[in-house]
């Protein structure tokens, strides 16, 4: 974890999926649903938390972009950049 965004999202998601932050970070390329035991309810919770923290709107179809920690970080990063631009 180097950037603030990486640290913040890892911290937030580690709490939701009940994993150690460093462990989750090591597994950042793994798929939440298949490999980390996240179900649709937890995915929804993650979505709501991200929307609130970063004040972004994530439409339902973007759920598919949030498959792993890494893809979630990339997605939020992109959203935030779009907002600045």
């Amino acid at each position, binding site marked *: 974890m180097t950037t603030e965004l990486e640290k913040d999202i890892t911290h937030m998601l580690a709490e939701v999926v009940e994993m150690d932050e460093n462990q989750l970070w090591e597994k950042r390329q793994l798929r939440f649903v298949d490999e980390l035991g996240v*179900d*649709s*309810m*937890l995915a*929804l*919770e993650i*979505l*709501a938390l991200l*929307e*609130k923290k970063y004040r972004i709107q994530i439409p*339902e179809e973007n*759920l598919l972009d949030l498959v792993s920690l890494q893809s979630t970080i990339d997605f939020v990063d992109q959203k935030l950049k779009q907002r600045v631009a």
Partner: protein
Amino acid sequence: MNRKAVLDYEEVRRLLPQAHPFIFIDRVLEFEAKQRIVCRKNVTGSESYFPGHFPGIAIMPGALLGEAIAQAAALLFVLSDDVPPEENNRLFVVGTTRTRFLKPVFPGDTLTISVEVVKLLSSSAMVKGWVEVEGEKVVTSSLALAAIDAAELKAQKRTLARTRVPQEVSS
């Protein structure tokens, strides 16, 4: 007499998949589609759970206050849905919940149950809810609900039953 109600008990009963003695909403007072709902429940000494909870002092079980919030959320979901209630065979299951019980609820209390949508998807919702008695919060909760087709849930139950039996036999 002021009897403000959006939905009365008969309508609540028709919309919720639950039945007596497991309905914890008497009336819907306010409703805004896909946004919020405010419901009422009057708690009486004759509730079925009071003889057991507890024999010495009647306190409404916290889990049932959570259930009241979940039922208010289910009503909000059903009322906001494009599917007509008569064709709606979905059940609502709570996936995650974070709940704080702030004050006990006793017979004679009137509950005002409020639910606001945090995020609404096509078959699930994240909501925050709270219960007030005389303007004071007694429970606050944040929960995720999923709408599941009743037939699908029954099929899952059968699958579970089938997979469990051999394990029990072998052990």
